[in-house]
């Protein structure tokens, strides 16, 4: 197990990067604490897999430094870093049995056969493939193959960290849930440092203690699931996390009042001066639909099961609100914003509000 320091790492896939746009990873500076469970969350192409491959040593960064427990490993190969990584699509060694597949990483490192046997049997129990041990890996389903890939990641107990690159993409939903809880249990039991890349917010929020949200080659926010939900640091985090995403609308600020078209909205505090375009963000969960407040016109009501999502227009802008399953939409609908859920953004970055 190790603490991993990513020191001002930049990476470009081009030979001579010039502008920021040439970098797949613009700059990441972050510490993954020993024994932490982290999720790297972001849309496709935001650089999360690049960051993961830099940590495992499959890629060497163009700039910056990587430390494991304070030791510089930037130049070390994947083998020397002693990392486990599980990939998005199952990688199995076709010609070997399930048992040999799991034993492979251990045997390559010269682990004594008795220990190999013990570890492999343990891991087979864990991924629920004990009865398949003697079978050739070739004939298995995609689910089972991915479990083997996971197993190969978990079979070594001395690794510095276990990295997951969207490992559950090919697994069916029920199994996904089971495996995710197993990973979580493993984490609690053995205290591995785990980094889990995903573009699925549910997966990230349920797996990790700390979610690292990436956007366009950089980290935009690191926090607990609750922090990401309540106080998104960047409007992107607001959009990306939550379903539906945060409502963001341009406003003018005067002291503790925000003006949206002809409407005036009371803020919980006066925002500290921010420059650039000012926007107000509020999650649909904090938009109250009722008989008083700002008049809206409803365009659609989506029943998504546990609650309803109301799509409406406020001052000509689209806005979403979440209401309970049993609530009804009033005849002359109006909305109020719950002050607890209001965030103010200047140039897309959140500004603090005073008392």
């Amino acid at each position, binding site marked *: 197990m190790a603490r991993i320091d990513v020191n001002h790492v930049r990476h470009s896939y081009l030979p001579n990067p010039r502008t920021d746009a040439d970098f797949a990873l613009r700059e990441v500076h972050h510490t993954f604490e020993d024994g932490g469970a982290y999720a790297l969350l972001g849309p496709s192409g935001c650089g999360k897999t690049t960051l993961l*491959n830099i940590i*495992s*040593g*499959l890629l060497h960064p163009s700039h910056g430094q990587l430390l494991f427990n304070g030791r510089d490993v930037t130049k070390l*190969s*994947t*083998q020397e870093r002693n*990392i*486990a*990584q599980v*990939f*998005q*699509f199952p*990688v199995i*060694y*076709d*010609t*070997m049995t399930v048992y040999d597949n799991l034993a*492979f*990483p251990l045997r*390559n*490192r010269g682990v004594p056969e008795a220990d190999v046997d013990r570890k492999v049997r343990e891991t087979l129990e864990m991924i629920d493939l004990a009865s398949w041990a003697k079978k*050739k890996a*070739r*004939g298995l389903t995609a689910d089972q193959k991915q479990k083997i*890939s996971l197993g*190969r*990641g978990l079979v070594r107990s001395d690794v510095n960290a276990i990295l997951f690159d969207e490992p559950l993409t090919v697994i069916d939903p029920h199994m996904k849930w089971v495996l995710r809880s197993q990973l979580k249990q493993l984490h609690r039991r053995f205290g591995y440092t785990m980094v889990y890349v995903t573009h699925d917010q549910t997966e990230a929020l349920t797996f990790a203690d700390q979610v690292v949200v990436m956007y366009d080659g950089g980290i935009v926010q690191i926090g607990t699931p609750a922090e990401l939900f309540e106080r998104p640091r960047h409007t992107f985090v607001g959009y990306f996390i939550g379903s539906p995403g945060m409502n963001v609308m341009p406003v003018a600020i005067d002291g503790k009042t925000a003006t949206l078209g002809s409407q005036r909205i009371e803020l919980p505090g006066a925002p500290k001066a921010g420059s650039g375009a000012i926007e107000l963000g509020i999650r649909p969960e904090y938009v109250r639909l009722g008989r008083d407040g700002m008049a809206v016109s409803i365009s659609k009501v989506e029943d998504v099961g546990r609650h309803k999502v109301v799509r409406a227009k406020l001052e000509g802008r689209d806005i979403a609100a979440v209401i309970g399953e049993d609530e009804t939409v009033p005849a002359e609908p109006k909305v109020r914003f719950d002050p607890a859920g209001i965030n103010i953004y200047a140039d897309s970055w959140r500004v603090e509000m005073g008392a």
Partner: protein
Amino acid sequence: MEKTWNNKAWFLVLPVLVLVAFSAVIPLMTVVNYSVQDTFGNNVFFWAGTEWFEELLSSSRFWEAMVRNLIFSFIILAIEVPLGIFIALNMPKKGWGVPVCLVLMALPLLIPWNVVGTIWQVFGRNDIGLLGYYINALGIDYNYVQDPFDAWVTIIIMDVWHWTSLVVLLCYAGLVSIPDAFYQAAKIDGASRWAVFRYIQLPKMQRVLLIAVLLRFMDSFMIYTEPFVVTGGGPGNSTTFLSIDLVKTALGQFDLGPAAAMSLVYFLIILLLSWVFYTVMTNYDAER
């Protein structure tokens, strides 16, 4: 669900059946016809029964040619397959080197077979051939026209030059189909270069390799043009393969009956060996 049977569909395959009949079945039947008859010309035939077959199977000339064929096929497979794999492994996977290598590899395959023979026939001559002249200049006595060993070396090198590319291209196709994730996982698992070859690359190449071996075996077993152009089957009979012997019998001596019997036996041998290969291959797949 009940299947609909409609025999009219046979009309759709009729053109193919007719074509195959004219191009393969009818010629084959004429050969069968010749093989059981004798003639002294003037289109007069006599029934000969199995005489030609008995004569053929008891002739040492036939068996010697057959043994030469088997040895030749074995040697070129033993050289071309490992060499082909080796070259394919070392070919670039991306960049400008890929088209360059592919074109270079394809070149020998594009040259007509008799031209390949002529190239090596001239190349190996010790009076005007670059190869023959310089080997002799180095003090090695090399003369493929007189020495059977030199003749064998020449046609084997020629075949390797001509056909290794086919094995390379097939293996290369197998190799480039391996996703990067496999190599990355192997690095994570701490696999050695040999383990990567043994457990990732070789299994992925297995299928194309079987096809390569089958093709190279059939082709080399039926080899005719190139050795015929280079050595004409000599010196003596040392490079007379079945096909060369067959042509000598049929066209050189115009012994239609024995030649027909020989073609049939030759055909059956290739059919049998191909069937063995095919069965082994399909069984191998079914096991998985």
